């Protein structure tokens, strides 16, 4: 788990300017700044403290993102990992089924929090695709990256109806959603960790 977030932090830091550039034409140009600030702090916290179980790690991640990211993405990412933490509470080992349940609950949580469905050009689009991939079973690192990447790319042709990008209406078309891009990086990090474990 800790490796996942360290890896995710690395990727977010590397792509800070890229994420911000995605947020410029259809947002307020801070998504990279927000995410980098949050994940930096997550990595710091995780390296300083000891955790008794996976749920505690996820809760720390959630609370840190909540308190540091701000904007729309802060509570959304906070919700994702808080829900996961609740689902995985009390478990020492997390098998595929449990992790899938965690992802499902995370998706449900973020949809409810953002009052968003798929197709609205938000990070929900990436999470939905990933959840469906896990539900189908037969999970590989490369398959995960491919599914997440495809979902991210698909947001390009959507018209935003949620978040700041919605004010751009039709003009939001033709730009990848910044939140989908950061979610893609989170899953790319997960795939990297999965590869290393094998």
């Amino acid at each position, binding site marked *: 788990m800790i490796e996942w977030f360290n890896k995710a932090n690395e990727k977010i830091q590397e792509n800070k300017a890229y994420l911000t550039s995605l947020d*410029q034409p259809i947002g*307020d*140009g*801070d998504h990279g*700044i*927000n995410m980098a600030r949050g994940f930096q702090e997550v990595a710091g916290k995780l390296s300083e403290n000891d955790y008794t179980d996976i749920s505690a790690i996820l809760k720390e991640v959630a*609370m840190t993102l*909540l*308190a*540091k*990211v*701000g*904007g*729309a*993405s*802060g*509570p*959304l990412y*906070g*919700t994702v990992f808080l829900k996961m933490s609740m689902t995985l509470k009390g478990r020492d080992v997390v098998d595929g089924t449990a992790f899938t349940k965690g992802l499902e609950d995370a998706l449900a949580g973020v949809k409810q*929090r*953002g009052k968003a469905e798929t197709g609205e050009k938000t990070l929900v689009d990436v999470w939905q695709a990933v959840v469906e991939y896990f539900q189908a079973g037969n999970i590989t690192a490369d398959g995960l990256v491919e599914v997440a990447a495809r979902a991210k790319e698909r947001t390009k042709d959507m018209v935003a*109806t*949620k*978040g*700041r990008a*919605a*004010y*751009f209406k039709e*003009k939001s078309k033709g730009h990848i959603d910044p939140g989908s891009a950061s979610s893609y990086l989170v899953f790319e990090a997960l795939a990297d960790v999965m590869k290393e474990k094998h």
Partner: protein
Amino acid sequence: MKKIINDPNQVVQDMVDGLVAAFPKTMKKVEGTLVIARSDAPVSNKVGLVSGGGSGHEPAHAGYVGKGMLDAAVCGEVFTSPTPDQVFEAIKAVDGGAGVFLVIKNYTGDVLNFEMAAELAEAEGIQVEKVVVNDDVAVEDSSFTTGRRGIAGTVFVHKIAGAKAESGASLEEVKAVAEKVVGNVRSMGMALTPCIVPAAGEPSFKLDNDEMEIGIGIHGEPGINRTQIDSADAIATALTEKVLEDHDFSGEVAVMINGLGATPEMELFIVNKKVQEILADKGISVYKTFVGEYMTSLEMAGCSVSLLKLDDELKELLDAESGAPAFRM
């Protein structure tokens, strides 16, 4: 970027310290946070009023902290919603046992962060209610989208809900009057120039030398159209007519001509002249007019026009005493 600042990443901290240093009898900082609360908070048995959002809209929101208005304002990073933990600190700081009421401008980030804070507070047994302000008629009103933005009309919600809370009203009563204000206030803005978020160092959008944007949001979100600069009369007409179309303002109204930051007050009065003429023409009578900077966008040049339809209750609450430095009555 020409700014009188120290570190672009410390502007909010510095501002909060400078604000509390200016008005020590009225407000205090909640230690370790960017929350500014009334100096006598929590006031027991009074509903606590909390608002806030990204910084850069000064005097909103911290300038409205004071007796008869806000009990606390949460200062986010510039144009970035404050986080739930900060809002939660504000709620705890003003909870006097009668519950806490949140005034939220309708931006996804603000709504999400304030809602999460409300959940944290409720989990600790604090009763929380809220209103979401969405007065910006430049955005189409549709239940399928993010909805309208909250802009300068929010200040009327602060004033009136604040006066209601000060009068000893219950959480439900404060909520009812706040919803009444939200239902009866409409605004629209325009800009001549963009503004620069200190940490970004560059304007988030550009306007040509002869261009203006009608309907722009207070963070530079897109407006309705971008055209050649027109006369003050034409601008006042464009804004006022769109506001009037959206709601039945017959009867009595309060008017707010709000500067976005860099517009000389002279120009706001020139706009006001035309707005008052239009209202007089339509037989709408003006109870009170506010001209000045109430909800700014850093150094953006431009203005917004807000109308609030009044009834006897709203008039009385609008007139009630206020000790907030940016809204003395």
